[in-house]
């Protein structure tokens, strides 16, 4: 989770990634950010996020992102 938070804070130093659950719906992350996050997950976790997983529900909070990473890691 810490590794993920570092990735996120790199995009926006001020957003409250620990608690915010509307990162997409609230417009905190834009399409540039999503692309950066996908690239960073690949780099830091060695996990390729498949197209079907790139949906708003998986990017709306750090928790959702982390759960997706764990799920993909187990597969």
């Amino acid at each position, binding site marked *: 989770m810490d590794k993920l938070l570092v990735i996120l804070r790199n995009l926006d130093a*001020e957003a409250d990634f620990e608690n915010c659950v509307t990162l997409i719906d609230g417009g905190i992350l834009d399409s*540039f950010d*999503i692309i950066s996050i996908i690239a960073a997950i690949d780099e830091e976790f060695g996990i390729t*996020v*498949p197209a079907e997983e*790139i*949906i*708003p529900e998986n990017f709306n909070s750090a928790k959702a992102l982390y759960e997706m990473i764990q799920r993909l890691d187990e597969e």
Partner: protein
Amino acid sequence: MQRNLLEYLENSAKEFPDKTAFSDGKKGLTFEELLDLSKAAGCSLLEEGFAKEPIAVLMDKSPAMAAAFLAVLYSGGCYVPLDREMSANRIKLILETLKPRAMIVGEKTTAGFARTLKYDGEIYSFEELSFGDGDDEILDEARERALDTDPAYIVYTSGSTGIPKGVAASHRNVIDYIEALGEVLQADGGTIFGNQSPLYLDACLKDFYTTLKFAAETVFIPKTLFSFPVKLIGFLNEHKINTVCWVVSVFTYISGVGALESVQPKFLRTAAFGSEVFPAKQLRLWREALPDTRFINLYGPTECTGMSCFYEVDREFDDDEAVPIGKAFPNTAVTLLDDDGQLIEDADVPGEIYISGAGVTYGYYGDFERTEQAFVQNPLNSAYREIVYKTGDLARYNEYGELVYISRRDQQIKHMGYRIELAEIEAAAAGLDGAALVCCVFDSVRSLITLYYTGTIEEPKLKKQLKELLPGYMLPSAVERLDEFPSLSSGKIDRKTLTDKAIERNV
């Protein structure tokens, strides 16, 4: 002969009054509704005393914004499209430079934001302007005074001095462009565009005016969908979208994450792309997934209205081969000249692209100096005045006689489809307290902007302050403070060394 862009709207509204012209996927405006709203709002502008002058339109992308553009044309004026995503600072700069006497906003959307801009002209909501009916007598009178050489819009593009440049294009420029583009896209009344381009860029002319000319339809695709490829393709299928003119980065993002393997845009018959080079590997994925779709590479600067060159993909490309930009649009000439102004006709000799024809715009509004640097007498013509646009783009002919883009001559870049002067980012950063020397470099392979600077300001603080000054797409992905800059023997900053440093950092 057609003299005014509004004739597109008027003809379509007469023939297909109940057909949807623009929609956001939920709500739309038919051609008749669009006509009525535009005429009513245009008439109000005339009654308020505005005619033949720039009117700013600051709204969120919507069918109503389309009507606001057309309303300004009904007043005989030219619209200046603005959007909150350009950042407040940039909008302020544009308003201070241009000084339009009026601005149109959305009552429930941008009105509050507009009041924070300290703008001293009149602010009207589109809702109040378009209330009631337009008076035909007043509108006809305005049309009689109109010329096809009158400016239709001013769009702002990145300027190397830090102040955006406003490119002014006439009705004639746009008509010439849309007539040619319609042929290239093979557009007709059945065309349904899926719009991606912001309405504050010339890129949107393709969807916008082609829709009006052919009584076609444009669906404004919600911006967040471009982050989610599978959902985006679902939207295209739901709305039976068959034509898209998108920036390359949208296509490569979709194919790059493997979305085409699970879902395809099944109605897509024409896919046009531009602004950047389409990597051959990604293009192959698209062509394999959609073997019956036409893929068209478009090239053209804002200064020549829209697009000036096109190439319809008709063969396979090696991974390291560049997709050509092809040949000039109908009624446009594109020539390659060497540094001595001599014509280049042989293959593989690099030269600068010069563009001539009815699509060459007036240049930069209120800035004769910068206009004259780029809009020049055709070096090959010593007989009469013929203004051509010197693009600053280098290209060559390949063995098929097709033009292939090579690079820029200056520090202008294309990032996520947006045209950016690195010097504009530098100008913004250099203006911050505590920043001394600044240098912005671009890793073109990874499409990443890095800003180096010296001075006392901390990196996160500089990043935060830049965010307030520049639109999102112009923000550097990395910011690094250096103790000192590498310099050339001339004393100038060594950009090459800094670029290499950034590339190394990005690996």
